[in-house]
């Protein structure tokens, strides 16, 4: 079964149809998506700043990683759920949207680098280049957000 077939099936389900036909569902889920993204990026940013050495320099990176974990994972979970709902609100349309494809492609390295950054922050000796990776990862998340915004424009 191809991805396109799955998207076509999602569009045919009662859930997908209800989302498309509702006036408030997409605006509401879009707002939840943005709100959750704020939490997730807030967590990512604070840990990045610690690894670059611009914030919380008197605390260990392990301690900061543990402190921001609830915000990051809570935000990431809500971002994923609301993102799937938004995808289902126009599955085939999104499938053919180039901005959506860019977003998905950028999402993979951004997420993997975030996990790596968290792991190195919690190790006894964080990698020396973790600050550079943190900057790259944060820029990747910014591109994900920009691509997300672009979905509505293309």
């Amino acid at each position: 079964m191809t991805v396109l077939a799955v998207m076509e099936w999602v569009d045919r389900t009662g859930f997908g149809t209800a989302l498309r036909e509702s006036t408030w569902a997409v605006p509401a889920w879009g707002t939840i998506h943005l709100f959750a993204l704020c939490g997730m990026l807030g967590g990512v940013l604070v840990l990045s700043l610690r690894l670059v050495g611009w914030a919380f320099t008197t605390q260990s990176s392990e301690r900061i990683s543990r402190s921001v974990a609830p915000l990051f994972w809570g935000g990431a979970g809500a971002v994923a759920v609301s993102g799937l709902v938004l995808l289902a609100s126009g599955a085939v349309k999104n499938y053919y949207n180039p901005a959506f494809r860019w977003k998905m492609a950028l999402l993979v390295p951004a997420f993997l680098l975030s996990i790596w950054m968290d792991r190195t922050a919690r190790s006894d000796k964080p990698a020396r280049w973790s600050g550079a990776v943190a900057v790259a990862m944060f820029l990747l998340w910014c591109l994900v957000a920009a691509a997300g915004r672009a979905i509505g424009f293309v």
Partner: protein
Amino acid sequence: MSLQVAFQWVNDSPFSTAVRESEYLFPLFNAVHVIGICTLLGTIAVFDLRLLGILFPDERASTVARNVLPVVWISFVVAGFSGFVLLASEAARAYTNPAFWWKMFLLLIAGVNPLIFHFTVFRRVKEWDSAAAIPWNARAAGAASLLLWTSILIAGRAMAYF
């Protein structure tokens, strides 16, 4: 000159027209605005959740403030600057948009809230810095800030639907 005339004048300026009519400028400033909002709300939430005793319970409130608030200010400048560009580009539309005026009203309150907090309860932060018992007014300021910024986000998103 009435306010509406001023908004219309900004709307018709060459700069606003260029942003509005460009294929890339409006989406670009929109993306910058969203990124600014994410880091702004994300870092404000870190401090507010510390005031509520939910996040960073092991760090002093003043430590979290010192490390996080500079990022809040930078984000505020990014979101504010891009916001002004976006507003200028569709000033005439914004003037008649109820969601826009709600957003401005809520922004005003969101600005007053930390002012009150800073000049009252935060002055005595040394007394409750590492204490598990955060005073009720510090908790109230944190809760009010979270609620206000969430409402601002909703009003901002709603602008697109009016």
